């Protein structure tokens, strides 16, 4: 899989690189083509310029030669002597830097038109040692061609010069005979060089030379080396004699260009063209090839394109890699979430099947044992427990669904914290008992009994934390709960601090980082069997935060965990009246010092006189002593589990040894249902669960001493519900039967509509006030609950259209709740229905209607 991905990545990168390379190759090739084309045109241009220079040169040479020709013709025509000829030219010669020499061929001496350097009148000139005029075959007849010497040193002034020549005939004055002579029009090369440069600025490094048919320089540019161009070429361009001879023939006979290497070993272009009107001379132009082959612009273009493509490629690559990384993370998360959900479903399947097994199995047992009432009752009790467990599971799922969609809402109402704690202890007892865990529950300063918040959520918070502590504590371990009331910073509130400590498996720091996330459960070989949804802590934290409290956890793996929940809860307006007992003497017996102290405080605050005994034997002594002195205690409160003799034994001895009828309350933090019979037999008058709340003690003591307490149990009075008539839209017969029976227990009458359509029809036909509200199932034949609700809301009768409608459905997810509310319903109760919730909902609706 991984290698396949790598292969795909490689292919994509490869394709990108191929495309980029293709573009670059194209650009380079195209640029190269353009360069070559440009280079070729530049070479042509250079050739043309050389030809132009040749024409300019030829014109110049012809012009100079023509002057020489004119002089020669005149001299020949006039039959002059050397002196006369020199005098004639001197007279007609006006250019400052040029001169003319008339040289007799027999002696190679003659006269110059200008005096020798450094003299004023020395005009004699000798070419005897110059090897220039020894052979004058190259000097053609007048007007036939340009007759020009090689560069030579002017014997009169030492300047390097060229001379245009003509053969002339002079007369020897003495003998009168004719003498062959040569007329030289001498021009300094420095003068020529001033004119003889390439005109274009781009050819600043180009140089010119002129060679004769043997390759010898007539005029030599700086870059041309050796005394012969052919030698120069051969020195730096090794080639075989045949090839070089062919090349030299080509150079001296045609116009064109070739590439050659100069003395600096740089590639040059040599342009050549014959000089017209000369005898086999060739004009040569030499320029470094790089001067013609300007590529910098193209290089910049290639560089820019390359860089651009590279940046594009890299940025795309980085972006794609980044995007892939993000996708991978998302995929990993999805995978992880999926796995978590799979695990969750697997767990759920297990968790549902277990109680379902109990329900089905126990139902079968109950059916077979219908004659045995006790056995059937026990089976039903256990079925109920299993059902409740199932409900808890489903509620958890609903809660997390609400939490995740942010639709978890509080439903505050007035409740008793005492009731809540009792409920908490009661719920915990079976597990504590099963696991044989040492359990203690201390309350502290609980002065405000009635509070106003969402009791259900508060219960959930407290139960979740406590049940976790019990769940993750091994048998024989210890779980303690501390609940205290403190003054809150929030006006009208009390601060409840709920601390649950256990000696359980604890948590790793890594787990603690994620423990509030859904579906997370601590893994430990010792707790593999622990059942749970992994949603509890997530829900708890959300709820704590929703109520505006804090949750804190301290844990050490292997040592235990302490959860602390701090909540500021509004104190209810209604509180118990001032609870004061008639003067009574109370003996509290317990081995737990804290318990003794809190009980003593509570009883004292109720106006009782309290004595304490730290064990059964001590208590017996104190009771006996009081009995003998005729001052019996009014009430004795004895803890069940004590180290020397337990509560039951103590009661038994009190009754047998002292023979007193003092009311005795047996106190326990454990489930005392198992010992109820034994306790009654031993002589206990009542039972009270730890922790000992003020109101509980007040009620119990008053009950024992024969005085009705003024306890107010607002939640247990259902008289307000009597006579209510509710319309239940339910297609399922069993469900209808259940809800109908349940509501009838509270004196509520019900009417049934088998589907939405019937429900709407019944509402249309109903008289005002016929129904207090409607419980509406959602999924029904013909017309579902949502459509029925919408139809009812559209009824003309204001009473009918505004009747409270509460969904009662197995569609229990948050989106289902929202769909119900959107359809116009006023509330939502999930199946299986909790009758307490149903009653609560009825009351809420009723109150709202009022």
């Amino acid at each position, binding site marked *: 899989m991984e290698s396949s991905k790598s292969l795909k990545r490689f292919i994509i990168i490869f394709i990108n690189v191929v495309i980029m390379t293709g573009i670059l190759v194209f650009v380079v090739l195209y640029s190269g083509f353009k360069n070559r084309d440009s280079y070729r045109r530049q070479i042509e241009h250079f050739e043309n310029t050389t030809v132009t220079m040749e024409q300019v040169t030829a014109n110049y040479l012809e012009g100079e030669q023509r002057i020489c020709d004119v002089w020669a013709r005149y001299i020949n025509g006039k039959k002059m002597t050397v002196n006369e000829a020199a005098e004639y030219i001197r007279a007609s010669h006006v250019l400052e830097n040029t001169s003319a020499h008339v040289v007799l061929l027999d002696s190679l001496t003659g006269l110059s038109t200008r005096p020798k350097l450094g003299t004023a009148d020395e005009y004699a000139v000798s070419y005897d040692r110059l090897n220039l005029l020894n052979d004058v075959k190259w000097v053609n007849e007048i007007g036939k061609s340009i007759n020009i010497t090689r560069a030579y040193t002017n*014997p009169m002034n030492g300047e390097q010069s060229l001379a245009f020549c003509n053969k002339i005939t002079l007369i020897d004055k003495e003998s009168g005979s004719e003498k062959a002579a040569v007329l030289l029009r001498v021009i300094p090369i420095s003068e020529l060089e001033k004119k003889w440069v390439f005109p274009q600025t781009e050819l600043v490094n180009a140089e010119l030379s002129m060679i004769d048919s043997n390759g010898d320089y007539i005029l030599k540019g700086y870059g041309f080396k050796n005394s012969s161009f052919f030698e120069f070429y051969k020195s730096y361009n090794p080639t075989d004699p045949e090839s070089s001879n062919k090349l030299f023939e080509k150079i001296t006979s045609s116009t064109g260009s070739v590439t050659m290497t100069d003395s600096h070993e740089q590639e040059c272009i040599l342009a050549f063209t014959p000089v017209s009107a000369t005898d086999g001379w060739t004009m040569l132009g030499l320029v470094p090839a790089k001067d013609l082959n300007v590529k910098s612009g193209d290089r910049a273009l290639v560089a820019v394109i390359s860089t651009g493509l590279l940046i594009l490629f890299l940025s795309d690559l980085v972006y794609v890699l980044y995007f892939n990384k993000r996708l991978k993370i998302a995929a990993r998360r999805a995978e992880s979430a999926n796995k978590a959900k799979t695990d969750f479903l697997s767990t759920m399947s297990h968790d549902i099947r277990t109680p379902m097994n109990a329900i089905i199995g126990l139902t079968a047992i109950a059916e077979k044992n219908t004659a045995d009432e006790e056995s059937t009752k026990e089976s039903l009790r256990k079925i109920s427990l299993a059902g409740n467990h199932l409900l808890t599971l489903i509620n958890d799922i609903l809660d997390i669904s609400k939490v995740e969609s942010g639709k978890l809402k509080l439903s505050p109402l007035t409740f008793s914290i005492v009731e809540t704690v009792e409920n908490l202890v009661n719920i915990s007892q079976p597990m504590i008992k099963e696991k044989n865990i040492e359990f203690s529950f201390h309350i502290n300063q609980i002065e405000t009994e009635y509070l106003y918040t969402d009791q259900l959520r508060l219960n959930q918070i407290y139960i979740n934390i406590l049940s976790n502590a019990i769940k993750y504590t091994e048998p024989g371990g210890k779980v303690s709960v501390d609940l205290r009331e403190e003054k809150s910073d929030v006006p009208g509130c009390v601060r409840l601090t709920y601390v649950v400590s256990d000696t359980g498996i604890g948590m790793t720091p890594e787990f603690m980082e994620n423990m509030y996330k859904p579906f997370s459960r601590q893994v430990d070989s010792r707790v593999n069997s622990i059942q749970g949804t992994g949603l509890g802590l997530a829900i708890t934290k959300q709820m704590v935060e929703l109520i505006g409290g804090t949750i804190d956890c301290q844990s050490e793996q292997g040592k235990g965990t302490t959860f602390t929940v701090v909540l500021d809860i509004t104190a209810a307006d209604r509180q118990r009246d001032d609870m004061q007992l008639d003067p009574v003497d109370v003996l509290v017996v317990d081995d737990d010092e804290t318990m003794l102290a809190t009980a003593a405080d509570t009883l004292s605050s109720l106006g009782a006189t309290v004595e304490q005994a730290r064990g059964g034997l001590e208590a017996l002594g104190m009771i006996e002593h009081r009995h003998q002195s005729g001052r019996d205690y009014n009430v004795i409160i004895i803890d069940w589990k004590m180290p020397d003799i337990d509560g039951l034994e103590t009661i038994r001895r009190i009754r047998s040894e002292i023979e007193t009828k003092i009311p005795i309350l047996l106190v326990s933090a454990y489930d005392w249902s198992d010992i109820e019979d034994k306790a009654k037999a031993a002589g206990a008058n009542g039972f009270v669960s730890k922790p000992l709340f003020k109101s509980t003690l007040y009620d119990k003591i008053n009950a024992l001493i024969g005085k009705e307490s003024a306890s107010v149990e607002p939640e247990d009075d259902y008289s307000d519900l009597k006579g209510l008539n509710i319309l239940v839209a339910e297609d399922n017969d069993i469900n209808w039967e259940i809800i109908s029976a349940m509501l009838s227990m509270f004196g509520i009458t019900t009417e049934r509509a088998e589907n939405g359509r019937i429900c709407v029809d019944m509402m249309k036909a109903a008289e005002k006030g016929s129904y207090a509200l409607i419980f509406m199932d959602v999924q029904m034949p013909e017309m579902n609950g949502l459509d029925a609700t919408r139809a009812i809301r559209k009824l003309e009768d204001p009473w009918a259209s505004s009747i409270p409608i509460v969904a009662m459905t197995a569609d229990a997810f948050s989106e289902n709740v929202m769909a119900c509310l959107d359809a116009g319903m006023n509330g939502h109760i999930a199946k299986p229905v909790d009758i307490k919730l149903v009653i609560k909902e009825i009351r809420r609706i009723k109150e709202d209607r009022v």
Partner: protein
Amino acid sequence: MKMKKAISLILSAAMVLGMASCSPAKQKTEDKAFKPALDTSTSCDIKIAGGYDNFEALETEFERFNAYYPNAKLVYTKIDDYNNMIGTVLNGNDAPDIYFNYSWMYGRDKYKSSIDHAENLADPALKLDLNCIRSNIILKTSDGTLPMVPVFSNTYGMLVNQNLFEKEGLKVPTTYQELVKVCNAFREKGYENPIMGFTKKETTSLFTLTIYPYFFSTIAKDAGAVEKLNSMDASAGEYMRPSLEKIKQFTTDCSVDLKSCDEIKNNYEAVILRFFKGDVPMMTCSGDTVSGTKKRESRSEEFIANSFKYTFVPVPMSDDGAVFADMANLQFSVNKDSKNLKMANEFMRFLITQRELSEMAQNKGLMSPTKDLSFNSMYAAFGKVPESRILSPEVIGVSDDAVVQLRQAGFRVGTGKMTVDEAVASYGKLEQ
């Protein structure tokens, strides 16, 4: 452990010693490296005038100079009829910055201008490393100034085909006896011409080349003889007798085939091409001729077909060994009126060093004027000649005219046109 410690101590000591011994040497090298004294961006044309048609070795050298002064440009100009024209050129519009000069022009009115225009190169302010040049060929004027410094030197000797010597198991001779033996040995092995040379004209003929150094060794310490020879006194002819007799003896002892030698048309290219045929173990010639060998290797079909190693050695005409006739070949002067005098001097300061002179001489194929001749293997044998046997004709002071008499006499005796007695008697009257 102790061993390791000892080794590390030894290595450390060696390193310290090595560093100590290396540092001064490095310092010395750095000190000798050329450091530009002018603005390196200076732009100018340095005109150098001479009699050579072209001077590629100088161009190459100038390119090395261009590494320091990239904008300085060399313009070399060949002057026609150089010796006669240079005076005029120096006074004209085309006056060069540096020019060829020759010490034989000292004291001659005709060449006065060439000497007068020259800067005194012995001036310490110029910082020329004159010590690298053999003192024999640094020739000052009578008033102690140094108008020119040699950039090439010349001598006479013979090209030796090393392959033939190796093939025949013979050693290059260092004394006259050895020379005779080697010649005979080659003859015996079937070599028709163990030694050859140009004999068509007296100029740098085989006779001059062989006898010239020998002659100077016979008169070097005899000031009276030099005086007499220079005065063209007829009796001075006797001073030539030993040398002329040696010529006769040499041609006989070494079986020199004059007829074959006569077939060599000139004293330069023809000599080289004949030698490149590969059948002549020894070929007399001057350093000037040697300078042309490299270029002509590719022009000789025989040499291309059968190339061989060769070198240039002195001809041992004496039993005591060979004499190295040390002569300045080409000298440079700086025009003191140069428009680019500073740059011209800077180039001279760059050039006049052991390394640069050796480089340029090697490129030209001529002998370097420097004391150390090992740079070019072709001339290395001359560097091994003891100082006592290195003689400079110009230091000895024999005039050109006297040398011409010797040359003529040697040629005539060698070719059999005169007897030794006739030649001796003709001293002062022999004409070219």
